[in-house]
């Protein structure tokens, strides 16, 4: 295929860089454009008018606008894993190699078979699907819905994982200026000159706003030149950050704004280390919204045909991009924008066949200009229909007297007036207000710290915008504590901006579109009204008006104005739907930033992680932690073999388990004991120095919160552990108790979870092993250091350590803690010195097996629904004191003795496997809810017993020992018969702990 020439490119106009020619393809056809083009301007330059198909009727669509409000010119940009559906050609910066495809057409853009929907349109009116597709009921999922879903959506998401990276950043400033048109630039400049920290943001790749698109003079120079000089001055201030290609998409509380910077969307592939986009969280003391205004179309017949374009967009393509959007134009307006447009069209050498204005009294200057250039003027007239099947070939004009005539043209430039971009001003709950004289919604009450200036506020003249921007910039700077600096406002003229509200041409013969992207017509609005969907929100939801990717920027006001006409209410009384973030659509990847894949959450590693890795441990995610799950030896082919070997090692020799993940808190102060008495159900103030005690804490609602041990190292110095899962929660709770419940107590809390590497050394040879590393003269004998003793000591030749005679495994066991950086060395030393005793490391699986063998509760039992009584720990609760959760734990529902309690289970057929989550029902009972008596919380294969064992919560557990129940597990086809047994399976008397 040959590259087509840029036949519609104007010779001497535009801000494009003609020295940089760029190649791109659209639907596989190669074209050329220039640096500074958008995809839309480059397509128009090449004479491409048809760029997409509409959502419902698959009508041909072209380019309506030149900005982010574009409803029609949506393409799939790039390909493969980088495919970006629904990309607006009007804001896509052209780059070399750009690849775009049209969407929502089959088999091709010019021949779309689904355009048959247009013929069916009498039956596909708004909300038709609510009235049908109901018979027979089963056909919905099987037939109707798949059919609808095949037609749904426009573009296609990539099928592969997004290969690009995203970044997040923060910015802080005194003044955030959103929009860099005349008002925004003056605001930023005025503020910057005071020394304030200013951020200027614009969604476009070039600063300047309408000054780039209209032929205007500012301070005696061309608008675009003035923009360059202001931007250059802004760059010279160290406190100013200029952010082009950045959209402020949302206002959030307390001066926070979300913005997305398109860092590398204007290049084929981001450079190495460069993110595709960056999410900015901008914190501003003051914000000036200067996002300008968007032109709105007038609703007339076939107003969606390629060749119908907003008048301001026509000027943008001519003046900024040097492109002829057509050869012969008809201009249709209800305001003075029509006059500016004919001047620019004529200036660009485009024939203007007619100026059609709904008003009856045009300016004499406009009339004489028209006469001079042979432009026919129709006052009090409308363009009722665009004629042409795939593009505009003529306009049917209906005059004030009702006569109709067709005038040949290939471009209809339309202006229905301007909608100030008030969206961001309403994100925090404000409501825009209707102003009849402007025929527009303007900002209402503003959030604290926010100001609006320029046409975003409904101020439409250039001179007024400059002045208002300067005033807003100065006011914000002064409010931020800066001295106003003398700043002259450059001279400019206010252009005429008279308007007479006009929405909908009722004499249209063809479909007249309100929401072009969602194919909502004026008839649909009328139907909704007829059916009682008369609130603007009902209208929107019933017809889908304003719900497309442009969020109704060109359609909402027209829609509600038509509704108001139908209901006979004013527009003010009809009200508008709420704008919500984002202002324009934002890539989901940008909102996630770097937090995806393995970096979704941070990873927490214990001090001897590298040792465990060397040792070949299998790791498991436990909250943020990676923990060693088990340590396979060569030849061990399944995890169960390894875990059984590890358990047997502990039961028969000695094992070492990394328990550094336990939460650890130092609790100091003269009232530490008193404090702990109030947070544990049992007494801690009576604990002797050098001793530890198991403890349980409740939530205030009487449910078990966490368990652990408290050790006392001095009268005013306790150390407690929490479960791995609850470390943060417990600290927060204790701080609440300390600061809010009992602020007068002398208690200080120090979270020290990371200070200590801690290891459980368990098994009959544990003492022998530890004896090899404790420094003299520490006496580790059973007599000197009995069960539940604790001590501070040194090990391995002077390393500070703490030793706790605690056991979770049921064996004679210790926990030894050393400063974190010594953890790796301690582990290696224990392995080396323990070789003679047959030492082996064990992981979380073996730990779990042994705690179940001993009937200790853990996470599956401490599930936030169980009481101390349910866990078999009710007797621990002291009756001599109050503690958190005591009062509410006495409510009948929690104190009920028939509540399920923790008890043990074993399979009747000892070879059967047990599974957590099975429910208990009577052996001969039906599997129905009424017979549900509890469920299995934890299971393990016990190498000590040679069969599976389990813990579970069972109603009336104590009186049911020996009963046979069915562990009902249909989701895994795992029904087994089980016997109720005591929860302790190994060393029931606890003798091994104390040897």
């Amino acid at each position, binding site marked *: 295929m040959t590259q087509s020439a840029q036949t519609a490119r104007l010779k001497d106009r535009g801000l494009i860089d003609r020295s940089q020619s760029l190649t791109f393809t659209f639907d596989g056809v190669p074209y050329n454009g220039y640096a500074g083009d958008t995809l839309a301007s480059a397509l128009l330059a090449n004479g491409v008018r048809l760029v997409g198909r509409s959502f419902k009727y698959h009508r041909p669509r072209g380019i309506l606008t030149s900005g982010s409000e574009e409803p029609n010119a949506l393409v799939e940009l790039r390909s493969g894993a980088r495919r970006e559906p629904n990309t607006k050609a009007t804001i896509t910066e052209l780059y070399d190699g750009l690849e775009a495809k049209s969407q929502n057409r089959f088999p091709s853009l010019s021949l779309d078979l689904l355009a048959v929907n247009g013929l069916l349109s009498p039956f596909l009116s708004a909300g038709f699907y609510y009235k049908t597709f109901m018979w027979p009921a089963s056909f919905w999922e099987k037939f109707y819905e798949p059919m609808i879903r095949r037609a749904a959506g426009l573009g296609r998401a990539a099928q592969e994982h997004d290969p690009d990276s995203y970044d997040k950043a923060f910015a*802080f400033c005194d003044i955030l200026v959103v929009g860099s048109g005349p008002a925004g630039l003056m605001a930023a400049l005025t503020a910057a000159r005071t020394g304030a920290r200013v951020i200027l943001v614009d969604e476009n790749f070039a600063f300047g706003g309408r000054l780039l698109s209209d032929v205007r003079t500012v301070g005696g120079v061309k608008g675009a030149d003035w923009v360059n000089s202001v931007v250059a001055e802004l760059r010279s201030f160290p406190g100013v950050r200029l952010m082009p290609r950045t959209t402020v998409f949302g206002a959030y509380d307390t001066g926070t704004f979300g913005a997305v910077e398109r860092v590398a969307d204007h290049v084929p592939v981001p450079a190495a280390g460069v993110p595709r986009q960056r999410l900015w969280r901008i914190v501003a003391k003051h914000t000036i919204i200067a996002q300008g205004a968007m032109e709105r179309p007038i609703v007339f017949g076939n107003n969606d045909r390629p060749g119908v374009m907003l008048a301001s967009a026509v000027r943008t393509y001519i003046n900024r991009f040097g492109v002829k959007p057509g050869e012969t134009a008809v201009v249709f307006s209800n305001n003075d924008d029509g006059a500016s447009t004919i001047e620019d069209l004529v200036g660009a050498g485009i024939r203007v066949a007619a100026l059609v204005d709904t008003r009856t009294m045009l300016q004499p200057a406009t009339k004489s200009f028209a006469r001079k250039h042979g432009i026919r003027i129709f006052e009090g007239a409308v363009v009722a229909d665009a004629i042409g099947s795939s593009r505009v070939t003529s306009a049917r004009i209906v005059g004030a007297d009702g006569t109709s005539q067709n005038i040949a043209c290939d471009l209809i430039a339309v202006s229905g007036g301007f909608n100030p971009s008030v969206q961001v001003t309403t994100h925090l709950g404000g409501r825009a207000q209707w102003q009849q004289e402007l025929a527009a919604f303007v900002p209402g009450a503003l959030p604290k710290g926010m100001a609006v200036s320029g046409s975003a506020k409904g101020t439409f003249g250039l001179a007024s915008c400059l002045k208002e921007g300067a005033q807003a910039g100065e006011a914000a700077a002064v409010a931020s504590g800066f001295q106003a600096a003398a700043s002259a406002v450059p001279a400019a003229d206010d252009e005429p901006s008279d308007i007479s509200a006009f929405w909908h041409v009722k004499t249209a013969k063809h479909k007249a579109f309100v929401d072009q992207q969602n194919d909502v017509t004026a008839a649909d609005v009328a139907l909704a009204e007829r059916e009682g969907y008369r609130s603007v929100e009902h209208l929107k939801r019933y017809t889908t008006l304003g719900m497309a990717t442009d969020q109704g920027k060109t359609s909402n006001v027209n829609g509600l104005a038509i509704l108001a006409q139908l209901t006979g209410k004013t527009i003010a009384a009809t009200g508008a739907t709420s704008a919500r973030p984002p202002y324009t659509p934002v890539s989901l990847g940008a909102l996630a930033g770097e937090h995806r894949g393995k970096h979704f959450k*941070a990873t927490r590693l214990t001090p001897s992680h590298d040792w465990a890795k060397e040792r070949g441990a299998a790791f498991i995610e436990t909250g943020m932690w990676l923990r060693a799950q088990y340590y396979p030896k060569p030849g061990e082919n399944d995890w169960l073999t390894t875990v059984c070997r590890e358990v047997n090692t502990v039961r028969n020799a000695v094992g070492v388990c990394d328990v550094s993940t336990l939460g650890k808190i130092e609790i*100091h102060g003269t009232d530490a004991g008193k404090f702990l008495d109030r947070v544990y159900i049992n007494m801690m103030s009576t604990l002797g120095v050098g001793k530890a005690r198991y403890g349980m804490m409740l939530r205030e609602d009487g449910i078990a919160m966490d368990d652990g041990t408290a050790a006392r190292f001095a009268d005013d110095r306790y150390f407690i552990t929490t479960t791995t899962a609850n470390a943060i929660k417990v600290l927060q709770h204790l701080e609440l108790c300390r600061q809010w419940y009992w602020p007068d107590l002398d208690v200080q809390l120090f979270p020290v*979870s990371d200070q200590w590497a801690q290891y459980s050394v368990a098994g009959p040879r544990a003492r022998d092993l530890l004896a090899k590393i404790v420094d003299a003269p520490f006496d580790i004998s059973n007599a000197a250091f009995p069960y539940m003793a604790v001590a501070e000591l040194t090990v391995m030749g002077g390393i*500070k350590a703490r030793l706790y005679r605690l056991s979770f495994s049921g064996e004679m066991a210790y926990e030894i803690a050393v400063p974190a950086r010594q953890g790796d060395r301690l582990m290696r030393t224990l392995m080396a010195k323990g070789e003679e005793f047959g030492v082996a490391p064990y992981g979380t699986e073996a730990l779990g097996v042994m705690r179940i063998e001993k009937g200790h509760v853990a996470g599956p039992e401490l599930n936030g629904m169980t009481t101390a009584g349910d866990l078999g720990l009710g007797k621990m609760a002291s009756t001599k004191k109050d503690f958190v959760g005591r009062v509410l734990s006495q409510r009948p529902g929690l104190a009920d003795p028939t509540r399920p309690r923790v008890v043990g289970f074993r399979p009747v057929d000892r070879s059967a496997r047990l599974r957590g989550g099975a429910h208990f029902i009577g052996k001969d009972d039906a599997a129905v809810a009424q017979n549900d008596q509890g469920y299995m919380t934890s299971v393990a294969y016990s190498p000590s017993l040679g069969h599976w064992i389990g813990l579970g919560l069972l109603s009336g557990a104590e009186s049911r020992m020996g009963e046979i129940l069915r562990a009902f597990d249909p989701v895994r086809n795992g029904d087994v018969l089980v016997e109720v047994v005591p929860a302790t399976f190994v060393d029931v008397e606890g003798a091994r702990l104390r040897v």
Partner: protein
Amino acid sequence: MSELANHTNTAHASDLIERNDVTVTNIAARRGARASLDERARATFGVSLPSTPKAVEAGGALIVWAGPDQWLIIQKDEAGRDHYSELAKTFNGLASLVDVTESRTIFRISQARPSPVLSRSMGIDFHEDAFKPGDVAITHVSHLGVIVWRLPDGTAYDFACARTYSRDFGDWLRKAKA
């Protein structure tokens, strides 16, 4: 193993080091003892304990505010001295003290001004005029908790993060300091 190798290599990059040669003592005022504690601190170090997020350097110690009525006292290790025990003796009865040397990894970036990437990555205003020498912030970055302070002489930034998260944090910091 690549993680580890990477970690070791870059940790020795000239402008980013891990401070492994200090003792860090966390002290917290006993109830009602704030004034006497301050007096003792002045007698010991010659300065008051900062009551706002500041770091002061005096008497061979860097004293970093670490929350209401709490400080980290950071002292360079010296052979034959046990800083923690000395402090425990000095402040006995006026403060509770815990040796937290190993609780955090302290990274030091020896930059007088933060890099733009580092600056924009922080959730606090890290502009050099907003975060001045001697300023302290306890905050989080990229899901990781951190205490950051700018040395009172303005020559460097220290980042103290929980030791068990320090591999992730170090990776993050290496990227951000560029």
